[in-house]
Protein backbone atom coordinates (compact mmCIF):
# COMPACT_ATOMS: atom_id res chain seq x y z
CA UNK A 1 0.00 0.00 0.00
CA UNK A 2 1.24 3.38 -0.94
CA UNK A 3 -0.16 6.78 -1.55
CA UNK A 4 1.10 8.67 -4.53
CA UNK A 5 0.39 11.87 -6.29
CA UNK A 6 -0.24 12.12 -9.99
CA UNK A 7 3.00 12.49 -11.86
CA UNK A 8 3.68 12.97 -15.53
CA UNK A 9 7.18 11.56 -15.51
CA UNK A 10 8.99 8.71 -13.79
CA UNK A 11 8.80 8.90 -10.02
CA UNK A 12 11.53 7.87 -7.60
CA UNK A 13 11.73 4.15 -6.95
CA UNK A 14 10.48 2.72 -10.25
CA UNK A 15 13.98 1.49 -11.02
CA UNK A 16 16.67 0.53 -8.50
CA UNK A 17 19.41 2.83 -7.26
CA UNK A 18 22.28 1.52 -9.43
CA UNK A 19 20.13 1.93 -12.54
CA UNK A 20 19.20 5.48 -11.53
CA UNK A 21 22.86 6.21 -10.97
CA UNK A 22 23.99 4.79 -14.32
CA UNK A 23 21.40 6.73 -16.30
CA UNK A 24 22.13 9.81 -14.21
CA UNK A 25 25.76 9.56 -15.33
CA UNK A 26 24.74 8.99 -18.96
CA UNK A 27 22.47 12.03 -18.84
CA UNK A 28 25.18 14.19 -17.29
CA UNK A 29 27.85 13.27 -19.83
CA UNK A 30 25.56 13.77 -22.83
CA UNK A 31 24.24 17.06 -21.40
CA UNK A 32 27.77 18.45 -21.03
CA UNK A 33 28.50 17.46 -24.62
CA UNK A 34 25.27 19.16 -25.72
CA UNK A 35 26.16 22.34 -23.81
CA UNK A 36 29.53 22.46 -25.56
CA UNK A 37 28.07 21.84 -29.00
CA UNK A 38 25.11 24.18 -28.40
CA UNK A 39 27.38 27.23 -28.33
CA UNK A 40 27.92 27.11 -32.07
CA UNK A 41 24.16 27.20 -32.66
CA UNK A 42 23.49 30.18 -30.40
CA UNK A 43 23.80 33.82 -31.32
CA UNK A 44 21.80 36.90 -30.40
CA UNK A 45 19.10 35.85 -32.85
CA UNK A 46 18.69 32.20 -31.84
CA UNK A 47 19.37 32.42 -28.08
CA UNK A 48 16.11 34.25 -27.23
CA UNK A 49 14.26 31.81 -29.51
CA UNK A 50 15.77 28.87 -27.61
CA UNK A 51 14.68 30.37 -24.29
CA UNK A 52 11.12 30.82 -25.53
CA UNK A 53 10.96 27.36 -27.05
CA UNK A 54 11.93 25.96 -23.63
CA UNK A 55 9.19 27.95 -21.88
CA UNK A 56 6.72 26.87 -24.58
CA UNK A 57 7.53 23.18 -24.06
CA UNK A 58 7.02 23.62 -20.31
CA UNK A 59 3.60 25.16 -20.98
CA UNK A 60 2.45 22.56 -23.49
CA UNK A 61 3.66 19.64 -21.33
CA UNK A 62 1.05 20.76 -18.79
CA UNK A 63 -1.72 19.98 -21.25
CA UNK A 64 -2.62 16.33 -20.89
CA UNK A 65 -4.94 15.22 -23.68
CA UNK A 66 -7.16 12.13 -23.43
CA UNK A 67 -6.06 9.12 -25.48
CA UNK A 68 -8.24 6.35 -24.02
CA UNK A 69 -10.87 6.30 -21.28
CA UNK A 70 -8.88 6.87 -18.11
CA UNK A 71 -5.57 7.51 -19.83
CA UNK A 72 -3.97 10.66 -21.15
CA UNK A 73 -0.79 11.82 -22.79
CA UNK A 74 1.21 15.01 -23.09
CA UNK A 75 3.82 16.46 -25.39
CA UNK A 76 7.39 15.31 -24.88
CA UNK A 77 8.75 17.87 -27.32
CA UNK A 78 11.80 16.11 -28.77
CA UNK A 79 11.12 16.63 -32.47
CA UNK A 80 9.66 20.06 -31.79
CA UNK A 81 12.84 21.46 -30.25
CA UNK A 82 15.12 19.55 -32.64
CA UNK A 83 13.44 21.08 -35.70
CA UNK A 84 13.24 24.60 -34.24
CA UNK A 85 16.57 24.98 -32.42
CA UNK A 86 18.61 21.89 -33.32
CA UNK A 87 19.49 18.75 -31.36
CA UNK A 88 22.22 20.18 -29.09
CA UNK A 89 20.31 23.23 -27.91
CA UNK A 90 17.09 21.22 -27.97
CA UNK A 91 18.35 18.55 -25.59
CA UNK A 92 19.32 21.29 -23.14
CA UNK A 93 15.84 22.85 -23.54
CA UNK A 94 14.05 19.65 -22.54
CA UNK A 95 16.50 19.01 -19.69
CA UNK A 96 15.76 22.46 -18.27
CA UNK A 97 12.01 21.77 -18.46
CA UNK A 98 12.48 18.47 -16.62
CA UNK A 99 14.67 20.13 -14.00
CA UNK A 100 12.12 22.87 -13.30
CA UNK A 101 9.30 20.31 -13.16
CA UNK A 102 11.17 18.07 -10.72
CA UNK A 103 12.49 20.79 -8.43
CA UNK A 104 9.54 23.19 -8.31
CA UNK A 105 6.50 21.14 -9.26
CA UNK A 106 7.40 17.75 -7.73
CA UNK A 107 6.83 16.20 -11.16
CA UNK A 108 9.34 13.49 -11.98
CA UNK A 109 11.45 12.11 -9.15
CA UNK A 110 14.80 13.67 -8.26
CA UNK A 111 16.57 10.30 -8.45
CA UNK A 112 14.67 9.69 -11.69
CA UNK A 113 16.02 12.88 -13.32
CA UNK A 114 18.71 10.86 -15.09
CA UNK A 115 16.25 8.39 -16.58
CA UNK A 116 13.73 11.11 -17.45
CA UNK A 117 16.42 13.23 -19.15
CA UNK A 118 17.73 10.16 -20.97
CA UNK A 119 14.28 9.26 -22.27
CA UNK A 120 12.66 12.56 -23.09
CA UNK A 121 15.60 14.90 -23.65
CA UNK A 122 18.31 12.71 -25.17
CA UNK A 123 16.44 9.83 -26.84
CA UNK A 124 13.43 11.97 -27.72
CA UNK A 125 15.35 14.87 -29.23
CA UNK A 126 17.93 12.87 -31.16
CA UNK A 127 15.33 10.44 -32.49
CA UNK A 128 13.18 13.34 -33.62
CA UNK A 129 16.19 15.02 -35.20
CA UNK A 130 17.28 11.82 -36.91
CA UNK A 131 13.88 11.34 -38.52
CA UNK A 132 13.76 15.03 -39.50
CA UNK A 133 17.21 14.70 -41.12
CA UNK A 134 16.09 11.65 -43.08
CA UNK A 135 13.13 13.64 -44.36
CA UNK A 136 15.04 16.90 -44.79
CA UNK A 137 14.65 17.00 -48.56
CA UNK A 138 10.89 16.80 -48.14
CA UNK A 139 11.00 19.31 -45.32
CA UNK A 140 12.93 21.86 -47.36
CA UNK A 141 10.77 21.53 -50.44
CA UNK A 142 7.66 23.21 -49.12
CA UNK A 143 5.92 24.38 -46.00
CA UNK A 144 3.62 21.36 -46.22
CA UNK A 145 6.66 19.11 -46.42
CA UNK A 146 8.12 20.61 -43.28
CA UNK A 147 4.83 20.23 -41.41
CA UNK A 148 4.53 16.59 -42.51
CA UNK A 149 8.14 15.98 -41.45
CA UNK A 150 7.37 17.51 -38.06
CA UNK A 151 4.41 15.17 -37.59
CA UNK A 152 6.33 12.01 -38.49
CA UNK A 153 9.42 12.96 -36.46
CA UNK A 154 7.26 13.74 -33.42
CA UNK A 155 5.34 10.48 -33.68
CA UNK A 156 8.53 8.44 -33.86
CA UNK A 157 10.23 10.41 -31.07
CA UNK A 158 7.34 9.64 -28.71
CA UNK A 159 7.33 5.90 -29.33
CA UNK A 160 11.13 5.57 -29.18
CA UNK A 161 11.37 7.69 -26.02
CA UNK A 162 8.87 5.33 -24.37
CA UNK A 163 11.23 2.47 -25.18
CA UNK A 164 13.79 4.22 -22.98
CA UNK A 165 11.63 3.40 -19.98
CA UNK A 166 11.27 -0.20 -21.13
CA UNK A 167 15.07 -0.44 -21.32
CA UNK A 168 15.52 1.04 -17.84
CA UNK A 169 12.84 -1.25 -16.45
CA UNK A 170 14.58 -4.22 -18.06
CA UNK A 171 17.93 -3.18 -16.57
CA UNK A 172 16.79 -2.46 -13.06
CA UNK A 173 13.03 -2.28 -12.68
CA UNK A 174 11.68 -2.58 -9.17
CA UNK A 175 9.10 -5.10 -10.30
CA UNK A 176 5.33 -5.12 -10.30
CA UNK A 177 4.79 -6.08 -13.93
CA UNK A 178 6.39 -8.37 -16.49
CA UNK A 179 8.73 -6.86 -19.07
CA UNK A 180 6.52 -8.04 -21.93
CA UNK A 181 3.50 -6.30 -20.44
CA UNK A 182 5.47 -3.11 -19.86
CA UNK A 183 6.78 -3.16 -23.44
CA UNK A 184 3.37 -3.77 -25.02
CA UNK A 185 1.58 -1.18 -22.90
CA UNK A 186 4.27 1.49 -23.29
CA UNK A 187 4.47 1.15 -27.08
CA UNK A 188 0.70 0.87 -27.52
CA UNK A 189 -0.13 3.90 -25.39
CA UNK A 190 2.70 5.99 -26.81
CA UNK A 191 1.66 5.24 -30.37
CA UNK A 192 -1.60 6.98 -29.47
CA UNK A 193 0.18 9.78 -27.61
CA UNK A 194 2.49 10.10 -30.62
CA UNK A 195 -0.46 11.18 -32.77
CA UNK A 196 -1.13 14.05 -30.36
CA UNK A 197 2.56 14.85 -30.22
CA UNK A 198 2.61 14.89 -34.02
CA UNK A 199 -0.36 17.24 -34.28
CA UNK A 200 1.02 19.69 -31.70
CA UNK A 201 4.50 19.62 -33.25
CA UNK A 202 3.20 20.05 -36.79
CA UNK A 203 0.97 22.96 -35.74
CA UNK A 204 3.77 24.71 -33.84
CA UNK A 205 6.41 24.26 -36.53
CA UNK A 206 3.84 25.30 -39.15
CA UNK A 207 3.08 28.49 -37.24
CA UNK A 208 6.75 29.39 -36.80
CA UNK A 209 7.67 28.72 -40.42
CA UNK A 210 4.77 30.85 -41.62
CA UNK A 211 6.13 33.88 -39.80
CA UNK A 212 9.85 33.35 -39.30
CA UNK A 213 11.22 30.55 -41.52
CA UNK A 214 14.71 31.92 -40.81
CA UNK A 215 14.35 30.75 -37.20
CA UNK A 216 13.73 27.11 -38.12
CA UNK A 217 16.95 25.17 -37.52
CA UNK A 218 16.11 22.42 -39.98
CA UNK A 219 15.81 24.98 -42.81
CA UNK A 220 19.19 26.58 -42.11
CA UNK A 221 21.37 26.93 -45.15
CA UNK A 222 18.46 26.78 -47.53
CA UNK A 223 19.55 29.05 -50.37
CA UNK A 224 16.14 30.19 -51.52
CA UNK A 225 13.56 28.88 -49.12
CA UNK A 226 10.24 28.22 -50.81
CA UNK A 227 8.74 29.18 -47.53
CA UNK A 228 8.73 32.92 -47.71
CA UNK A 229 8.06 35.35 -44.97
CA UNK A 230 4.35 35.80 -45.37
CA UNK A 231 3.54 37.79 -42.28
CA UNK A 232 2.46 41.32 -42.99
CA UNK A 233 5.68 43.15 -42.35
CA UNK A 234 3.97 46.37 -41.48
CA UNK A 235 6.57 48.83 -40.33
CA UNK A 236 5.02 50.55 -37.37
CA UNK A 237 4.94 54.30 -37.62
CA UNK A 238 8.12 55.64 -36.17
CA UNK A 239 9.19 52.11 -35.30
CA UNK A 240 12.78 51.37 -34.56
CA UNK A 241 14.79 50.18 -37.49
Amino acid sequence: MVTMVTAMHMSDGLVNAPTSLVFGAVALVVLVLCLVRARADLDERTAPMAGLVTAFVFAVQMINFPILPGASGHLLGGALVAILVGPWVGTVCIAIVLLVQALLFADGGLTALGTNITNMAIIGVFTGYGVALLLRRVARRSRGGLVATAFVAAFVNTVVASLGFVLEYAVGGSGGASLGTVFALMVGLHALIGIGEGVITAATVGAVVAVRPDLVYLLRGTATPLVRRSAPSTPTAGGAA
Partner: protein
Amino acid sequence: MTRRRGFLLGFLVVALLVAGGLSYFASSSPDGLDTVARHGCQVSETGGGEHLDGTCIAQNAGEHAAAHSPLADYSVLGGKGTVGIAGVVGVLVTLALAGALFRVLGRRSPARQAERGDD
Protein backbone atom coordinates in the same frame (compact mmCIF):
# COMPACT_ATOMS: atom_id res chain seq x y z
CA MET B 1 8.33 47.29 -32.29
CA THR B 2 10.69 45.29 -34.45
CA ARG B 3 9.57 42.18 -36.27
CA ARG B 4 11.80 39.96 -34.18
CA ARG B 5 10.56 41.28 -30.88
CA GLY B 6 6.99 41.01 -32.13
CA PHE B 7 7.43 37.35 -32.94
CA LEU B 8 9.16 36.50 -29.66
CA LEU B 9 6.54 38.40 -27.66
CA GLY B 10 3.80 36.55 -29.50
CA PHE B 11 5.48 33.24 -28.71
CA LEU B 12 5.63 34.16 -25.01
CA VAL B 13 1.98 35.20 -24.96
CA VAL B 14 0.97 31.85 -26.46
CA ALA B 15 3.02 29.97 -23.84
CA LEU B 16 1.45 32.02 -21.04
CA LEU B 17 -2.06 31.45 -22.40
CA VAL B 18 -1.46 27.70 -22.66
CA ALA B 19 0.00 27.40 -19.14
CA GLY B 20 -2.31 29.95 -17.55
CA GLY B 21 -5.59 29.18 -19.29
CA LEU B 22 -5.64 26.00 -21.36
CA SER B 23 -4.18 24.11 -18.39
CA TYR B 24 -7.62 24.24 -16.72
CA PHE B 25 -8.94 22.00 -19.48
CA ALA B 26 -6.14 19.42 -19.32
CA SER B 27 -7.10 15.80 -18.74
CA SER B 28 -6.53 14.66 -15.16
CA SER B 29 -6.25 11.01 -16.16
CA PRO B 30 -2.85 9.38 -15.63
CA ASP B 31 -0.53 9.74 -18.61
CA GLY B 32 0.92 6.89 -20.66
CA LEU B 33 3.78 6.07 -18.30
CA ASP B 34 1.63 6.47 -15.22
CA THR B 35 -1.02 4.20 -16.74
CA VAL B 36 1.59 1.50 -17.28
CA ALA B 37 2.94 1.98 -13.75
CA ARG B 38 -0.55 1.53 -12.30
CA HIS B 39 -1.39 -1.49 -14.47
CA GLY B 40 -2.49 -4.32 -12.18
CA CYS B 41 -3.50 -2.11 -9.28
CA GLN B 42 -6.89 -0.91 -8.15
CA VAL B 43 -6.74 2.81 -7.50
CA SER B 44 -9.01 4.28 -4.86
CA GLU B 45 -9.14 7.89 -3.79
CA THR B 46 -8.44 8.61 -0.16
CA GLY B 47 -8.29 11.88 1.66
CA GLY B 48 -4.53 12.20 1.40
CA GLY B 49 -4.11 10.95 -2.15
CA GLU B 50 -4.53 7.70 -3.96
CA HIS B 51 -4.42 4.20 -2.56
CA LEU B 52 -3.12 1.33 -4.69
CA ASP B 53 -4.23 -2.28 -4.12
CA GLY B 54 -2.77 -5.19 -6.03
CA THR B 55 0.58 -5.54 -7.76
CA CYS B 56 1.93 -2.80 -9.98
CA ILE B 57 5.07 -0.80 -10.70
CA ALA B 58 3.70 2.36 -9.11
CA GLN B 59 3.68 0.66 -5.70
CA ASN B 60 7.44 1.10 -5.68
CA ALA B 61 7.15 4.85 -6.19
CA GLY B 62 8.36 6.90 -3.28
CA GLU B 63 6.97 10.18 -2.14
CA HIS B 64 8.53 13.05 -4.05
CA ALA B 65 11.35 14.83 -2.27
CA ALA B 66 9.83 18.13 -3.36
CA ALA B 67 6.25 17.09 -2.51
CA HIS B 68 5.97 20.00 -0.11
CA SER B 69 7.20 22.58 -2.57
CA PRO B 70 4.75 25.51 -2.69
CA LEU B 71 4.17 24.68 -6.37
CA ALA B 72 3.93 20.88 -5.98
CA ASP B 73 1.52 19.21 -8.39
CA TYR B 74 1.06 22.39 -10.41
CA SER B 75 -0.86 24.19 -7.70
CA VAL B 76 -0.09 27.14 -5.48
CA LEU B 77 0.13 25.82 -1.90
CA GLY B 78 -2.19 22.99 -2.90
CA GLY B 79 -5.06 25.39 -3.53
CA LYS B 80 -7.86 24.37 -5.87
CA GLY B 81 -8.06 26.25 -9.15
CA THR B 82 -4.50 27.53 -8.98
CA VAL B 83 -3.06 25.48 -11.82
CA GLY B 84 -3.06 28.51 -14.13
CA ILE B 85 -1.07 30.62 -11.69
CA ALA B 86 1.39 27.77 -11.14
CA GLY B 87 1.68 27.42 -14.91
CA VAL B 88 2.41 31.10 -15.48
CA VAL B 89 5.07 31.01 -12.75
CA GLY B 90 6.55 27.90 -14.35
CA VAL B 91 6.72 29.50 -17.80
CA LEU B 92 8.43 32.60 -16.42
CA VAL B 93 10.91 30.62 -14.30
CA THR B 94 11.71 28.34 -17.25
CA LEU B 95 12.14 31.31 -19.56
CA ALA B 96 14.41 33.09 -17.08
CA LEU B 97 16.59 30.01 -16.57
CA ALA B 98 16.79 28.97 -20.19
CA GLY B 99 17.08 32.53 -21.47
CA ALA B 100 20.00 33.29 -19.16
CA LEU B 101 21.80 30.02 -19.94
CA PHE B 102 21.43 30.34 -23.70
CA ARG B 103 22.50 33.99 -23.64
CA VAL B 104 25.67 33.14 -21.75
CA LEU B 105 26.38 30.19 -24.07
CA GLY B 106 25.70 32.37 -27.10
CA ARG B 107 28.21 34.98 -25.97
CA ARG B 108 30.91 32.36 -26.21
CA SER B 109 29.64 31.30 -29.57
CA PRO B 110 31.92 31.22 -32.60
CA ALA B 111 28.89 32.18 -34.67
CA ARG B 112 28.53 35.45 -32.79
CA GLN B 113 30.56 37.47 -35.23
CA ALA B 114 28.76 35.96 -38.20
CA GLU B 115 25.74 38.18 -38.17
CA ARG B 116 24.71 41.24 -36.29
CA GLY B 117 20.99 40.54 -36.12
CA ASP B 118 18.47 41.71 -38.68
CA ASP B 119 16.63 44.31 -36.75
